[in-house]
């Protein structure tokens, strides 16, 4: 056990899996950095330093910088996965999915089904998502609902450093294609994380708080905000169950339904755009499956239906906040709260 940042947790998970299994390779733009340049080797370790140190340890044969051509190298990773390697490819920002989505959703995700169960594609795609970085419309999106929509993909959203290490390890060990979303605003957040390798099973939610009044289901960085909101509400005597599903696909519907049945109230917090997102997905699940257990309407806290604005003043209004979560909780609890 030692204090590690979210960044270090990812790094350590990849490093340990690379040590364990020679077939694990890593690739991406500037994933090591300084390729062909006269200066320092491993100059970047990824644009925000997540993969720093892997190239010096494992060499250029297993840590591959790429030209800027996401279709070619993400597709390459898919092809390599289908033929015996276990690639961990970085799509630097998930916003760049638009130039390479085909290789993810029509190729890697569908191999197994299209080929009648004969393909095994242990591909991991690491990608950064989320707002708060003043990075504007094309570098701040969430987009995990688009990946969750696609059968054949698994989607993980680690909400802190412990989750980061466990879910990354699991992703690399998993034999299906996994897309793992790293929130760019969390890389420096630290906590105690085990030093030894461990996987966190997919499809098993983490209940971070237990309470009586309302269930909060939140994703990725929003889990932290939900926890904060829950802590703050407890001062007013309102207790919340907070559920971090960890993976949106597979989804631990059981835990969600169970906890919502207990509290009878649900607030879903999703940083993604509001239409066809995880908030609607969870709301729909609950209102179809345990309608009669609900004591109040489901409430969704999401970003609004607009691109992510650049101006800090606007971006702060854009992102769901603990204040908005608290207000939503009070609303589902009805008058008097």
């Amino acid at each position, binding site marked *: 056990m030692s204090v590690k940042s979210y960044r270090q947790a990812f790094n350590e998970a990849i490093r340990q899996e690379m040590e364990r299994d020679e*077939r694990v*390779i890593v690739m991406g733009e500037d994933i090591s950095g300084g390729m062909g340049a006269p200066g320092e080797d491993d100059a970047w370790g990824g644009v925000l330093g997540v993969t720093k140190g892997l190239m010096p340890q494992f060499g250029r*044969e*297993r840590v*591959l910088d*790429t*030209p800027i*051509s996401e*279709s*070619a*190298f*993400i*597709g*390459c*990773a*898919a*092809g*390599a*996965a*289908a*033929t*015996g*390697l276990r*690639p961990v490819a970085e799509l630097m920002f998930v916003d760049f999915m638009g130039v390479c989505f*085909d*290789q993810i959703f*029509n*190729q890697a995700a569908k*191999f*197994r*089904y*299209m*080929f*009648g*169960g*004969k*393909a*095994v594609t242990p591909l991991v795609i690491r990608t950064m998502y989320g707002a708060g970085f003043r990075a504007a419309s094309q570098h701040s999106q969430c987009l995990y609902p688009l990946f969750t929509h696609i*059968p*054949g993909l*698994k989607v993980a959203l680690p909400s802190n450093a412990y989750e980061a290490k466990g879910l990354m390890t699991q992703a690399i060990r*998993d*034999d*299906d294609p996994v897309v793992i979303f790293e929130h760019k605003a969390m890389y420096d957040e630290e906590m105690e994380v085990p030093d030894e390798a461990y996987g966190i099973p997919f*499809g098993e939610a983490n209940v971070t708080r237990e309470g009586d009044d309302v269930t909060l289901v939140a994703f990725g960085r929003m889990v932290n905000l939900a926890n904060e909101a829950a802590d703050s509400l407890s001062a007013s005597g309102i207790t919340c169950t907070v559920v971090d599903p960890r993976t949106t696909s*597979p989804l631990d519907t059981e835990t969600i339904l169970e906890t919502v049945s207990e509290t009878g109230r649900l607030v879903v917090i999703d940083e993604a755009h509001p239409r066809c997102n995880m908030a609607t997905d969870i709301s729909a699940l609950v209102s179809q499956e345990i309608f009669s257990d609900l004591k109040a309407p489901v409430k969704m806290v999401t970003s609004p239906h607009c691109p992510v604005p650049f101006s800090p003043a606007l971006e702060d209004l854009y992102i769901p906040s603990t204040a908005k979560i608290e207000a939503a909780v009070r609303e589902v609890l009805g008058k008097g709260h």
Partner: protein
Amino acid sequence: MQLNRDDLKEAYRRMCLIREFEDKVHDEFAAGNIPGFVHLYAGEEASAVGVCMHLEDRDAIASTHRGHGHCIAKGCDAEGMMSEIYGKKDGLCGGKGGSMHIADLSKGMLGANGIVGGGSPLICGAALTAKTLKTGGVAIAFLGDGASNQGTTLESYNLAKVWNLPAIFVVEDNGYAESTASAWSVAGTQTKRAEGFGMPGAEVDGHDFFAVWEVAREAIERARNGEGPSLIHVKLNRYYGHFEGDAITYKGEGEIDKIKATKDCLNLFKQRVIETSLLESDDLSEIETSVKSYIDQCAATATNGSTPTEADLMTDVYLKY
């Protein structure tokens, strides 16, 4: 490296198998026995076979929407393929893939592909596996003239060269992408594009099995020796339309008949091996007869095969979910 008698018989067998397979699928589609989008390869046999005769199971290929020929050339089971095209449970992909998604990874056949340009990135991956695991294998993307304009293809040229991968891009240029002429849609030339990315590029007459075989030999040797990727521009023709049902009005009058009469790749092969006494006429007719009856058998198996059921719908999405 030389083709011995057995090799030549095997090459002819594979080419005949493709031709008969496609003719059969054409007839069966016309008779309403085969559903979906079906793209046939008849006329292009010398390309798939000329290339794949050099390959072993450790070598990989990726194909296109027009995948039957590549599959057969790479050793996929024709009976399983036919059943697949019929949507049957015994199909190579359990009936889930169909004509556009036939694959057999155990044979190094990474799949037909419904996405034009989809295969080249995957082939970079197979080449990377070969390079990383030092299998000595090579990986080959077949793509059409139309696919040669797709960004995924062009990016793959660069990646393959930058990483010095044992990858080969075989551009099968039949002159058309759907109804659009490659003379119009392809700016520059395929070989100059290869040069633009620092790769050797060669143009070859795709009706001539021996020419394809020779050019492929060089490129594959280069790749196996760690000398990186190449491009082969194969010029050829095709007998059926873009897909089954296409009235082919965009082609010139008599265009197809003329090719059939003068440049059919099976006929050219036959003439060559008989003229040069490499094989006898009897060898060839024996192959033709056995292939014909085998394909009849494939169609019968496919026709009589059982269809998948509700229990099959949700399997094979994940290994574990």
